[in-house]
């Protein structure tokens, strides 16, 4: 479980998160929704140590993550697929995965085989430069690269960005599948509220750095006010 407790983050004079608290339950998908600039990405960056909070703490199963370096937070079991995916275009698909597997405990061959089983298209293209992949394939590579390290928590930052609706649907299906088969804890940041709410158990809505709603996904999905004012879901 990931617990965020009273976290405030500022970039200079800009307050990105204000006293944000939330919990992401083990083995479940927690969606974090909100418009551009709501603080979603900052929240994930704070969890993985890329952003430093002014106040508040982040912890994972009683281990305090705040104050640790990103490199060490990753080793505790937090995988982070950043905004824009962060695939290294100059590397081949397999080099990207080998880099992700560096901190994995088991043998490399097995770890690779596991990812190629989950994402067959990566296996077919493993010798290709990542630059040649489509947007959806890149997102799969970014996810596989995080998963190959064997994390217990996966932070996904806008995986649907720039993807066709059908590809997004497949991707969400994969995330839901992974979560239910491996017991992975997922924090899913999305602007595309509709597809995120479809697979999430719980949903947190951020607005200008504050939590304005934190409830079961089904409840958030039915709340007309939330949908209209914060999620931009106009019928």
């Amino acid at each position, binding site marked *: 479980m990931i617990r965020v407790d009273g976290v405030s983050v500022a970039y200079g004079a800009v307050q990105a998160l204000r006293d944000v608290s939330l919990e992401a339950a083990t083995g479940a998908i927690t969606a974090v929704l909100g418009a551009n600039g709501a603080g979603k990405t900052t929240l994930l960056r704070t969890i993985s140590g890329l952003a430093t909070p002014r106040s508040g703490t982040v912890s994972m199963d009683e281990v305090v993550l705040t104050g640790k370096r990103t490199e060490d937070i990753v080793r505790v079991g937090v995988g982070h697929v950043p905004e824009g995916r962060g695939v*290294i275009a100059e*590397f081949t698909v397999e080099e990207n995965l080998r880099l992700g597997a560096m901190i994995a405990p088991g043998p490399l061959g097995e770890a690779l085989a596991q990812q190629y089983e989950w994402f067959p298209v990566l296996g077919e293209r493993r010798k290709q430069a990542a630059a040649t992949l489509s947007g959806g394939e890149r997102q799969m590579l970014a996810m596989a690269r995080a998963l190959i390290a064997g994390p217990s928590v996966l932070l996904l930052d806008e995986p649907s960005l720039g993807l066709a609706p059908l590809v997004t649907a497949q991707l969400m299906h994969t995330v839901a599948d992974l979560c239910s088969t491996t017991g992975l804890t997922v924090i899913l940041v999305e602007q595309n509220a509709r597809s995120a709410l479809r697979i999430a158990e719980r949903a947190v809505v951020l607005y200008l750095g504050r939590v304005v709603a934190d409830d079961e996904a089904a409840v958030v999905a039915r709340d007309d006010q939330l949908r209209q004012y914060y999620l931009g879901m106009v019928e």
Partner: protein
Amino acid sequence: MSALLTSRNVADLLGGVTNGVIYSLVALSLVLVWRSTRILNFAQGAMAMIATYIGFAILAPSTNYWISMAVAIVAGMVLGGATERVIVRALYGKPEINPVVAMVGFLLVLESVAAAIWSTSSRGLPTPFSMVDWQLNHKPVAMSPFALYEIITAVVVMSIIAVLFEYTKLGLQLRAAAIAPEVSRLLGVRVGRMLTLGWMLSSGVGAITAVLVASNYFTGLTPTTMDGVFAFGFIAAAIGGLDSPVGALVSGVAMGVVLQFVGDYLNSNAIILVALGMLVVSLMLRPNGLFSAERQRRV
């Protein structure tokens, strides 16, 4: 066959390659640092010179050449790592002029310190192999055991660096940290360590280069031993592309050969002019360098 090997053109070619591999090594050393930290290390030659003094002047001259060389390499690597930690780390994210000024300043400091400790007079290093050219039918071949030693050393150093970067886990991390530091951290790469290691490798290559240069009987070791070689290596790196090790290799050797012909057929005073001309033309045609992979990245 023997007439060909002893001909003027072949002599120029061989002499050019021998000089060129030295420029290639200097360029490689610059590329290693540029790739990982985007800093042009103007003090590279001076750092290598200090390492060579440590290997050959602090230890008595009678010490074994190879032990001195090993000491120089280790000293170079330590100096490189310390420079990254102490000086360079304060320069990340600063305006581009800051590292330039800092590294040029560091160059002057190192040369002054060396002159103060070891004086400016040239000191001959033991030369491990004869510098007398081999003979074929009583004519010299423009290739001596020492020249061959230089070429072989350069090839070995470059092969080690290439294998390290392309085929090892450490090389993968070094490359990733250079291309995408933040993503690398998210994958557990200790980026700070990789940057330090990049500087250490670069300075190790630099130290080997300086030992080769200084053990040449005609140069010897002075605080400014590396200045001329550094200038040509720098131009080679700029022509080849500062982020391309292959570019460093090819343009270093090519420059050595071209300049040898220029010196022989034109005038040895024209060498630096032609080198600068090559730089200007290549920068006009391909500002990123002939072998640079740098391009607009797709998001």
